[in-house]
């Protein structure tokens, strides 16, 4: 069965994914992209739900400080959600390494490539 990585792509990160396409770079196709406006909307239980539903890893690609809704504030708010999600993962015995959050600006293609590669390694083990 194919390993699956879920990418929650906030506004800027979604643009970065577009940018990756324009540059024709390669990353793992075992990825599903769900577009959201801002990572701060993610409820921790939704992240847990993704693992329970069958995903092997979750990449929360937030807009970072470039967030068009709240800028720098976004980082703190997202961090709070992710912190709670980690706690939930621990409760359910899911490897913390399978959840990654990163701030992805609209041209941060490298961040995407790097994070996906890292998650591939984690779930491959």
């Amino acid at each position, binding site marked *: 069965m194919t390993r699956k990585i879920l990418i929650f792509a906030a506004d800027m990160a979604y643009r970065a994914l577009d940018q990756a396409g324009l540059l024709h770079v390669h990353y793992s196709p075992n990825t599903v*992209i769900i577009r959201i406006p801002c990572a701060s*909307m993610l409820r921790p239980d939704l992240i847990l739900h993704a693992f329970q539903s069958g995903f092997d890893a979750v990449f929360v690609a937030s807009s970072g400080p470039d967030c068009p809704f709240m800028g720098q504030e976004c980082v703190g708010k997202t961090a709070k959600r992710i912190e709670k999600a980690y706690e939930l993962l621990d409760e359910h015995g899911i490897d913390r390494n399978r959840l990654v959050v990163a701030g992805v600006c609209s041209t941060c293609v490298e961040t995407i490539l790097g994070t996906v590669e890292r998650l591939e390694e984690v779930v491959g083990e």
Partner: protein
Amino acid sequence: MTERTKIGVYVCHCGGNISDYVDVEKVVDSVKDLPNVAVARHFVFMCSEAGQQLIKDDIKNLGLDGVVVASCSPHLHEKTFRDAAKAAGLNPYLLEHVCIREHSSWVHSDNREGATRKATWIVKTAIAKISLARELQPIRLDVEREAIVIGGGIAGLRCAIDLARAGSTVHLIESSPFLGGRVPQIYKLYPSGKSGCEIVEELIDEIKRYPNIKIYTNAEILSAGGAIGDFKVTVKVNPRYVGKVSDDVIAKCPVEVPDEFNYGLTKRKAIYKREHSYPDIPVIDMDACTKCGECNPDFDQQPQTIELKGSLIVLATGFKPYEPEEGEFGYKVHDGVITLPVFERLLALSDGKLEYNGKEVRDIAFIYCVGSRNEEHEYCSRYCCVATLNASLGALEKFDGLRAYHIYRDIRAYGKYETYYEEAGKKKMLFIKYDPEEPPVVEKSGNKLIVRVKDLLTAGEELEVPVDLVVLSVGMLPEMSEVFTMLRVPFSRDGFLQEVHPKLRPVETAIGGVLLAGACQGPKDTVEATASASAAVAKADTYLVKGYAELEPFIAEIDPEKCDGCEECVGECPTSAISIKDGKAVVNEALCKGCGACGGVCPTKAINLRGYYYDQLEKMIDSVGGD
């Protein structure tokens, strides 16, 4: 809620862009029998007239209650397809546009199977999302005919005039005490041959004719925010400390300081004004003023804080010339090494013969691409080649017996400007092509400057060019402004402001209602800057003249049944759009920008973000997770 069961799925080939790597037929096959799907098709160009017609026909003939289009990025064509759905009578938000080009075929061209699988997954999530989609209505916003233009250079002036002519009130904000920006510093503009002053003066004369243009010079922006239809900008207008006084009064001022307008080539008084500019009232430079009182000043004047509102903001903040490092081509080390903007002033100010620092100039070397096309600034600054050629031609025309050497990499005299390059040749100027790996070196030898350069056109002959003046053709850098961060306008890789799409939406930013004009978006000459300023106005007019804007309906929605008034969300909202009324949270729709942060913290799951309902997200996850 009941699920939608008649969803149409449309997969685009993008003329091979997608279908070369994604097996579109296979994608269609694997979703066409899903319970919610009524029809699934693939087509060569979904965005074409014929493709859109296909969707419209199916909506009408099959009574579809939801549509999924899988093609390029929704940033390109989501609106196209939503309009098509709307035209066929379907609520446009029952159409989901997902990306299988940028996000699949183009990034997985090395793995056709993987690309096809991923495309299928993406389509499945979209079907899941639409199966639970609610009908939404765009938020219609009345737009008053009032706009804010930030920057009073040539682009800002053009903007203000065009907006005012079309009947809007314009607030024009300029940080320096006088309008005009950098163009008046230019000796002669290409292609018209008129002086920068002349061109700007014409525009200022026009500005004065429109009472609906409110001008704020010497103005500092304290805060800026809001959204389309409702921007608020607070400016602090600094005092000039003096009223309209005669030139004799100005002459009385005992203090002289270098005039920044002339890059220190001349001096000005502590009280000064600019010719051919606006306003015609001088200003006192308090850093220099000795408060002698000769000019009848009013030191009691206080800064005024003004709150401006506008339906739209046009950024026309312009550029600044690159300032070479000390020692870069001898800059600031050898006397006689100056930048192009200084040379422009020197040309404008000199009469009879060209002199720099009291020494007559006979030979000039122009070194190109200073601060452009290098590791630090990879981009080409576009205007400098022609501007340099034009300045050199102007110099030769004004002063007899000058000789000019152009030390260049590529002469980018594009379009009609090629004639300037040719004219320079006819005027017997010499062109020496240098290798960026071995840039020219400027040295001092006696009372001459020597430029040592390896000429690529003689296969590397080492040349010595003795000159009196070295002019560095410096590139453009974006003029930074606090307002960028206040409005959260994104930058592109080159450090200039980023447009949404260079061809589809060239003057819009990712922030709705914030438009770009002139060189803040990237290097431009005056022709291009004024054209882009007018283009920004055209975009603005589509709202201002029409009188309303339609906004996406993606805002927070609170289920009062579930809400227990815990106030978690209130503190979380970045725009203070949520308040508690009668023990329940309520959303101010005008303030909510739709980030969904409130939903992320709601302990009772009472808050949803329209268009991104949590049940939709859950189903999207399930649609692939269990695969």
